[in-house]
């Protein structure tokens, strides 16, 4: 049986995941306590479909059971993967995956910028932070999804997803899974990967 995204995920659920990962990549989850992680898992579990998937269920369990030690090293691992100061182990910038040189702020970035501009948005410090940081891409989709007033908002959502996030999201998750040294970053990557999988309609988008 093929499950299509239309049948699987309610718009609300979809929006919730975008919100969750947007917060995650903004660094908002770095300060959570063990108890709060349990709460996050509770919230996630209210959405049944993703929790049906084995791998995700396992990851949720991991998150529920994180130790103090895990929480302590979470930020370090998160920075090693996405922030620095070292060579990034799982760059959060689309252009690192898609630009021929792996440079940031290249043509690919500008393509992303054009999408934002089309709906009247831009990155707050445009030109300083590459527009294709995953945080902004997620936020953009969230914005489009929540603004039915935007003309063609479903088309924009689909196009952006296909032309951008899905083009590199899997590779990004793969890199996290390869390099993660912490159960939280690992679990979040699994959940993100599965979510993108659903977003891609279970098609092999890579």
């Amino acid at each position, binding site marked *: 049986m093929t499950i299509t995204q239309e049948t699987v995920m*309610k718009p*609300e*659920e979809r*929006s*919730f995941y975008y*919100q*969750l990962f*947007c*917060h995650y990549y*903004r*660094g*908002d*989850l770095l300060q*959570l306590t063990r108890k709060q992680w349990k*709460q*996050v898992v509770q*919230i*996630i579990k*209210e*959405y049944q479909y993703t929790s049906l998937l084995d791998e995700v269920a396992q990851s949720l369990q991991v998150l529920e059971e994180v130790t103090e030690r895990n929480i302590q*090293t979470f*930020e*370090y691992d998160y*920075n*090693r993967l996405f*922030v*620095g*100061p*070292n*060579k990034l182990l799982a*760059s959060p*910038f689309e*252009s690192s995956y898609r630009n021929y*040189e*792996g*440079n*940031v*702020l*290249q043509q690919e*970035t*500008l393509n992303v910028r054009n999408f*934002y501009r089309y709906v*009247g*948005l*831009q*990155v*707050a*410090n*445009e*030109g*300083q*932070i*590459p527009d294709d940081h995953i*945080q*902004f891409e997620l*936020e*953009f989709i*969230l*914005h489009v999804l*929540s603004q039915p007033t935007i003309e063609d908002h479903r088309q924009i959502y689909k196009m952006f997803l296909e032309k951008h996030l899905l083009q590199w999201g899997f590779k990004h998750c793969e890199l996290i899974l390869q390099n993660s040294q912490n159960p939280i970053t690992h679990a979040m990557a699994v959940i993100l990967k599965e979510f993108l999988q659903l977003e891609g309609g279970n098609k092999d988008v890579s």
Partner: protein
Amino acid sequence: MLADNVSRRTFLKGSAALSTLLGLGAIGSKATNGLVPTAAAKSNSQKQQFFNACPRNCYDTCSIVTTVEDGRITFVTGNENNHYTKGRLCVKGNTYPRIVYSPDRIKYPMRQKGRGSGNWERISWDEAYTIIAKKMLDIKKEYGNTLPICLNKYSGNFNILNYATEGMLSSIGFTTRAQGTPCDPAGSDAQAFDMGTAYNNDPEQFMDAEYIILWGANPAWTSAHSMYFIEQAKEKGTKLVVIDPLITQTASKADEYIQIKPSTDGALALGMIRYIMDQHLYDEEWVNNHAIGFHEFVSYVKKNITVEWAAEKTGVPKPVIERIAREYATSKPANIWIGFGMQRHTNGGSMVRAIDALAALTSNIGKKGGGVNYIGGETWGFNYHTMSFGAPEGTEGEADRYVNMNNFGAQVLDAQDPPIKMMWIACRNPIAQDPEPNVVKKAFDQMDLIVTADLYMNQTVEYSDIVLPVTTPFETVGINVSYWHYWMNANEQAIKPLYETKSDLEIAMGLSKKLNELEAGSCTFPVSGNLVEWVEKEFNDDIRKLFGVKSWDELRKNGGTVKASEKVTVAWEDLKFRTPSGKYEFFSKKAVEYGHHPLPVFIEEYKANNEYPIRCISPHWKLGIHSQFQHIDWLGAIQDHPFVEMHPDLAKKYSIRENDMVNVRNEAGYLTLPAKLTKTVPVDTVVMYEGWWKDVHYTENFNVKALPSDMGDYSKGQRGIAFHDNFVKIEKA
């Protein structure tokens, strides 16, 4: 329908719950630093060009033209208005787009939990300033002064505004400074004794030379733009002689290459001098009128030096010495370029004095196209406004305390009353670049706080508590000159600084602001200011006159680059030397004052012992400048690992074949790297190129001891390092 409603309720609950949990507004609201409504003004999408200046520690200090489209750099190349740069950059300069846009730049201020642990947390600039300022003020309270704060900053960025770091530290009181330079001290002292200071002819004048001797210099790798003029001169008939222990890339282009035993160059110069004296090929009028001590020098040479001795000492056959001496003495003008490598020996300074003497007695000094060219500083007369603020009122003590940059680790450990407790590192990577890095690490261990400002992760950042992200030249404003050519280059801000990077000057202002918040009056450095206003403050009447340009703004509007007046481009043209006598000093009392022989005499070279019989030379590498550039992947695609060069005959003795891993070891340490067999190095010497640190857990300095060269204290405060008097043993790993 029902399901939908359930979902909706759940969603509200879920989403709202998440927001409540995080104590944050919903994403997309104004409070976030994410996406915002588009500003009215659309970003500039037309092509723009800016002038930049390569600020690296390089002879060539290029003027750059940067193409910017949509606020991002699309191409970086040389500026054609600069006749030395000629619109062309060296290979390193061509990688600047990658240096700016590599995802691996240091982006945010960060704090490491546990030095060397790799456990970094992101902090805001305000937090960073607070931690640093509090530590500084605590130190001042505990010790009554700020001497426990030590600055180690050097040559990573020679933008004149970057002296703000020194200025900021001087603005809190007296501190400890890493003093000296690992680079040129012995040779600079030698020239200071002989002529008053080191001062070189414009390198574009290679074209005017009849005869060129490159003495231990390898411009093909370290100064490609000079190499152009040398090659052009050669093609129009100038003879090019290269004297070097290695058949370098430059030596490969010579009309005549002379392989000399390392550290015996002084003997060769003296042998040539003896011949020139015997044959009366020197300029009697010149030595009588413009020099002192010539007679003493003649008696020293006649008594102690013979051409036979020089041949024996240097390994260069007598007829060759005689012929080169004659050719050099009879070609006018004849030009000598002394490389920095040649003086990185325990007798380096005295060897430079001997070569100077050779140029002096043939009256090649003060001539266009001639000269004994080493380094110069005539164009550096800026205001250094960033260093002008002075200690706060009521500061105790009189002066900064100095530790020798060339024996940094040991001297930091030795410093007492007060000990050193905090380290600020900028424009430097001491753990990779200093000799005896393990001692440097020990010194680091003793610190309460280590702050490093840098562009990329490196060994020093790895060992720091706080790292501050800095701008590339393209993201800030500046002004640059060279220690070799005679151009001044404007550096415009071409793009916004990426991420949260700041220039050293902005960091200085930010920290001063915080210090003053915490303790009013604790830092005299301005707490704000526009970068263009800062750079304009560097101009004074001398600079305006020398370059014929009124301001930085005028410079940037008129091609971004300008050459100094002809008058200064021929060193010592007026023959008014800056020595105590005002003349060229074959006999220098100043030298005696600093514990040297008054004359340019030969000092025996440092010798190998039986246990470590092989000399190990670590010259500069063509795809990097010290520890910079080498880690950039564009260059990694050309050469991705370090290697040790050795002569096939030497390799055979140890059963080493091409690419075999070799242990190179001595008392200081060891490293293991693949062999590259080549007849371009002598049989008794191995060569490792300097500055390689990427993907290896060592640097070539692992087996370099902090052995000082003979001179440096007079002009640089400290002696240099005899990098090339390093002896090792090798074995197949």
